[in-house]
């Protein structure tokens, strides 16, 4: 089942690229979940994040991978003593895993943000939040993408 749908998507991606007369670069290697974990490890300096406290809002299926609305909310009192410092967003199926990093402080009131992203294929969105007390939290969410949005 999974293999079948993957093959179908590959075909769709090729057909779409042909129709738009845009060629993908030959070096369009995809990031892997391992790349994302490496990036997270580097950012956190070896600390391992705990699960939870992050709420990711994403559509279940994105027809157009070029514009996918994404909302991230981190649970925190956002006080001087206890607040969210940074939130990182990664996409494990994109050519480059990095999506964005948002820096916060107690003046934000709540650690929540929205943006629109490009996704190359069906994949997992991973968010990591760094707290003021040095702890880190992680959450992930799967999304199905009908037509990828990175090659153009």
């Amino acid at each position, binding site marked *: 089942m999974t293999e079948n749908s993957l093959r179908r998507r590959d075909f769709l991606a090729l057909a779409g690229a042909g129709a738009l007369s845009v060629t993908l670069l030959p070096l369009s290697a995809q990031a892997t979940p391992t790349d994302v974990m490496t990036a997270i490890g580097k950012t956190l300096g070896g600390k391992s994040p705990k699960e939870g406290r992050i709420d990711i809002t994403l559509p279940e299926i994105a027809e157009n991978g070029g514009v996918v609305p994404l909302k991230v909310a981190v649970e925190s009192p956002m006080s001087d003593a206890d607040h969210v410092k940074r939130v990182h967003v990664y996409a494990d199926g994109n050519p480059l895993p990095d999506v964005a*990093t948002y820096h916060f402080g107690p*003046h934000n009131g709540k650690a929540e943000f929205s943006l629109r992203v490009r996704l190359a294929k069906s994949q997992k969105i991973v968010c990591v939040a760094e707290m003021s007390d040095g702890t880190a939290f992680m959450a992930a969410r799967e999304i199905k993408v009908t037509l990828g949005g990175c*090659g153009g």
Partner: protein
Amino acid sequence: MAKDIQPRVRIPSKLKPGEIFEVKTLVTHMMESGRRVDQASGKPIPRDILNKLTAVYNGKEVLVADWHPALSANPFTSFYLKADKSGELKLTWSDDKGETYTKTVKVNVG
């Protein structure tokens, strides 16, 4: 190109002290990912994205966002701020060429 770039910022017109409000922003920008190839010449189109957004509220930096090519063209983003005093909220975007685009809005607290 530069004059086509129109940053737009939207915040509530009136705020109470301490109120948490949403800042919505949209910029018209291609966000060229650097992965597309020009069909006529066969050459890759160089990357040109807005890579940073900074928000300054009454002289204090209140949000920094680092962006990568995975952001959609005409990047929209929203975030929250706590209303403190009336004044100015200044947003600055910078791109790969080192150019910056700014938009300042008045914050009404009272």
